């Protein structure tokens, strides 16, 4: 090390050359994604930011209007703000889906005969194409002839008009989505199977009962997966579109005119691209804030193996 500088410099430049080669190689290998990223993500993100400050109706070139798309939207008590609040209402689904998904996963984590059959049964609804499940649930929720109200009737409960009722349309959609809870369930199930058995044995030695084991061992151990599902749930709720488009087209009384639906209408039915882009950017910022809140709170409740505390 204390020898002359000469060989060191040569070694350094050799290293740089090989480093540069490695970097070129890396870039070459990722280029399919990188080119796609530039064309289909980076450029559009900036383009939509620009368009959000313009009045652009596709046929004429965009006209700069400053913040007026944003101020118009924030002052819009008829469509925009209700669409935002209706979407926030749908967040109710997240804790319910988490509870049911986790409970099912715990039930299916037992050693029972035919457990694979049960797992498939609960997972199956989540692979049904959204269009099919939307059409199916329109029929299930049919007030007069549907399965739901027939079941309620047999329990002597008068069923509501579901999708035809402004008060019940959102709960109806939440119920339909919960049918597909198996998608989250399999992720929890995989996580449960990764919880080390010695932890349960240690808990049993300390005299923990079933609930205590779930609360003090299982949940902390799988909390990173719960965290992941929460984030994806927040993002997914803001993108809620296909179901409303097919089942209610935003109605009745705009009760299911969710954010993504109103955005779609602006962009592709009214061709108000500037407004739609402003909505998309607000959505981006709201999602970012919501994700950050979940992320920040995660330090309190998410446990990572091997993390210094």
């Amino acid at each position, binding site marked *: 090390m204390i020898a002359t500088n000469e060989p060191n410099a040569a070694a350094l430049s050799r290293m740089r050359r090989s480093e540069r080669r490695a970097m070129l190689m*890396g870039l070459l290998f990722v280029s399919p994604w990188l080119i796609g990223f530039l064309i289909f993500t980076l450029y559009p993100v900036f383009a939509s930011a620009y*368009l959000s400050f313009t009045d652009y109706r596709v046929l004429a070139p965009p006209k700069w209007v400053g913040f007026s798309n944003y101020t118009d939207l924030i002052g819009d008590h008829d469509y925009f703000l209700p669409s935002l609040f209706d979407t926030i209402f749908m967040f109710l689904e997240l804790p319910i889906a988490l509870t049911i998904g986790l409970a099912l996963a715990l039930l299916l984590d037992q050693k029972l005969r035919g457990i694979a059959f049960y797992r498939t049964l609960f997972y199956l609804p989540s692979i049904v194409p959204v269009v099919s499940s939307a059409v199916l649930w329109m029929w299930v929720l049919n007030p007069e002839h549907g399965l739901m109200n027939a079941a309620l009737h047999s329990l002597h409960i008068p069923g509501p008009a579901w999708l035809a009722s402004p008060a019940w349309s959102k709960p109806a959609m939440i119920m339909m989505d919960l049918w597909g809870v198996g998608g989250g369930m399999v992720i929890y199930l995989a996580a449960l199977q990764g919880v080390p058995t010695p932890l349960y044995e240690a808990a049993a030695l300390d005299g923990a009962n079933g609930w205590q084991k779930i609360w003090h061992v299982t949940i902390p151990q799988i909390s990173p997966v719960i965290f992941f599902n929460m984030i994806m749930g927040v993002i997914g709720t803001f993108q809620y579109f296909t179901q409303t488009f*097919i089942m209610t087209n935003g109605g009745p009384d705009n009760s299911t005119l969710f954010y993504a639906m109103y955005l779609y209408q602006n962009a592709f039915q009214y061709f108000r691209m500037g407004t739609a882009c402003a909505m998309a950017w607000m959505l981006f910022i709201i999602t970012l804030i919501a994700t950050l809140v979940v992320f920040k709170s995660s330090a309190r409740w998410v446990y990572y193996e091997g993390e210094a505390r």
Partner: protein
Amino acid sequence: MSKRASQIIGHTVLILLGIVFFAPFLFMVSTSLKGDQQIFSSTIQWIPHPIVWSNYPKALAYFPFWRYLGNTLIICIGNVIGTVFSAALPAYAFSRLKWKGRDFLFITMIATIMLPSQVTLMPVFLLFRSLGWTGTFLPLIVPSFFGSAFSIFLLRQFFLGIPQELSDAARIDGCNEWGILWRIILPLAKPALATIALFSFMGTWTDFQGPLIYLHDEKLYTLAIGLNSFLGRHGGEWNLLMAASTVVTVPLVVIFFFAQRTFVQGIALTGRAN
């Protein structure tokens, strides 16, 4: 509580819940085989009487099912090919090559998964429109050839699990990085490639917003938007609608059952190789 008692309770709970989850499927298939009067009966009748098989050919004739199936398959296969081909190289660079900027680009890629698709939706639409590609399958296929972040991530996770010694041995034998990827990594990664192919197929089959935005000519419709326009035209004919929904759903269920076996085999093979 005895072990036997807890097993009986477990089965009872699962069967009761299972009935709740399965009932909509049963309702769909049962309705699809009922006559026009029976679907509107005042109580739920689970057994169709008489069984009207002809609902199926009738429903398939109401909307050009075979044409829509063909369109859907073209787009699905295009996406599977694009996704699989464009995922391997980036996944390799993100997992088994060391280079400056790798981690930065990888984090960037992961961040794009969280980006709401609406932020890019309009400019991408305008881009395809200026290319004259709206009203063709191209906007629904071409992007898949530029790597899907989720597939690359999945494949990278799999690549990370392949022992580094295999690559080192090949390098000593004079194999370059392309050779290592082609001859060693990809053959080992078949189960992972099958997984991303499957996800891509199922995602494309189900996709609604893409075809809705880009395909306006009814001849080019996919099954997803075809079913929606069926709903618009024959809204009250629930038996035919349920037949059509069943037909759109069944291929995915069948693929799921076949693929389930492939995955189990893939896992078993890896276990034996170790």
